[in-house]
């Protein structure tokens, strides 16, 4: 039985086309992936991402737990800030990638992927020591993402200045959003400025409508998973199950800066250190031939299989087909000509530095 988010019944009103993703029935698009993608790059888009999982982590030993179970270092994380991290298994493969918010001392809020939530929770529970209490609160929270250069303008019509987090990866807790107790976080998965809002389920439709209504003069567009995927791809943000998996290490995935090998220890460290310099790396692919390269296609160099693609499509803002791939390091240098097997047809590509799109500040 697939789950529905509390906003499921609202999708139809906006022309949402529904697909199954991560065990949930979710809208892949409303008006169209192209229009939604461009709205986020040039104005503002609203996504229901309530399928994401939320886990609270509290207690005297919560910080030690995070530093042990995650590859990033949380020691310096300040209250009101968030930090991204991969979570590794003993072999250095990625269990999931997630964001941890520090709500207060000994009080953290963790956001994980939908499809991996139960696996993550079991993995975390198995590594809890001392005074550290985890709770899966996913079913209590709505998560909306308000993304795009006009996202702040929309929020400013609803919230006072002090309720708006100013820096990326900071958050305000217990913000009164027209009567709804909300976490306002300056984060996102689009490569654009924007916010993610967390609040209790009963207010789902009220807040969704409020944001769409307030955003109307700014050209707000309800957005689905299709645009979420093309947006994150242009920005070269990795997706679990594609750029990351239990068999791909964060160093292979190009997430080095979130892996603190200087920490005394963390799960997966020994394996990552033993493996040394990764033999395959994540690269961008420019499609120089004709075709659309998608995920899980073989990558060839002069008759030799050298890797596989992890994501790829035609991206609406850069207006060209792009892809990411995991390839042997010998073939990773920017400008290396390669070929991708697109359903039996060889399409010429060339490695290209990531990301494909960077927001102008």
């Amino acid at each position, binding site marked *: 039985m697939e789950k529905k988010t509390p906003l499921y019944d609202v999708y139809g009103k906006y022309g949402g086309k529904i697909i199954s993703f991560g065990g949930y029935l979710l809208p892949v698009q409303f008006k*169209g*992936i*192209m229009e939604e*993608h461009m709205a986020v790059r040039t104005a503002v888009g609203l996504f229901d991402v309530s399928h994401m999982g939320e886990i609270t982590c509290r207690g005297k030993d919560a910080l030690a737990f995070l530093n042990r179970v995650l590859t990033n270092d949380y020691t310096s994380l300040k209250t009101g800030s968030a930090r991204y991290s991969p979570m590794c298994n003993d072999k250095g493969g990625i269990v999931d990638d997630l964001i941890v918010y520090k709500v207060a001392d000994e009080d953290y809020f963790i956001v994980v992927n939908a499809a991996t939530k139960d696996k993550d929770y079991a993995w975390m529970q198995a590594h809890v020591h001392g005074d550290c209490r985890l709770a899966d609160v996913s079913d209590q929270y709505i998560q909306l993402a308000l993304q795009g250069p006009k996202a702040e303008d929309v929020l400013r019509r609803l919230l006072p200045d002090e309720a708006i987090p100013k820096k990326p990866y900071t958050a305000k807790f217990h913000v009164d959003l027209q009567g709804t107790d909300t976490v306002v976080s300056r984060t996102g998965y689009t490569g654009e400025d924007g916010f993610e809002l967390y609040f209790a389920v009963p207010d789902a439709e009220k807040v969704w409508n409020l944001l769409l209504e307030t955003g109307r003069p700014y050209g707000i567009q309800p957005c689905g998973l*299709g645009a979420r995927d093309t947006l994150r791809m242009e920005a070269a943000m990795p997706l679990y199950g594609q750029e990351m998996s239990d068999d791909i290490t964060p160093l292979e995935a190009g997430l080095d800066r979130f892996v603190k090998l200087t920490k005394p220890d963390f799960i997966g460290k020994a394996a990552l250190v033993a493996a040394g310099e990764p033999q395959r790396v994540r690269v961008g692919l420019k499609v120089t031939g*004709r*075709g*659309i390269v998608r995920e899980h296609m073989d990558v060839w160099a002069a008759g030799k299989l050298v890797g596989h693609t992890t994501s790829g499509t*035609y991206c609406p803002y850069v207006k060209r087909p792009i892809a990411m791939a995991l390839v042997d390091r010998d073939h990773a240098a920017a400008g290396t000509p390669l070929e991708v097997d697109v359903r039996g047809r060889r399409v010429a590509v060339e490695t290209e530095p990531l990301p494909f799109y960077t927001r102008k500040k």
Partner: protein
Amino acid sequence: MAYATDRKYTKTHEWVKTEGGTAAVGITDYAQEQLGALVFVNLPMEGDSVTAGEPLGDVESVKAVSDIISPVTGTVAAINETLLDHPERVNSDPDEAWFIKVSDVTDTDELLDAAAYEAFVEEEKAKEQ
């Protein structure tokens, strides 16, 4: 939406229009609407043979790739090269945006006239609800 009566249709949402000894093949307005904005069209080469009921090529939107099923068996006499650079023409004018023209047609798939196709599309839409 009224479907043009100068051609026949398939249940896989292609159209075929016979004119001057060749059969032009395209996809219907309903098909392009279901696929969304097209970003790539992959066509066979002139001289290739196509078989009724088998893919003749494919079209890609941002999200997915979909086969185009040939309504006829024959030889590819011409391809619409404009679509290779402008796949969006399929969205803007599906009735004019032919993919290939087929000569020496020896067989056809089950074809519907405009009224029967329209009724079929209505059924499909009802299933979606």
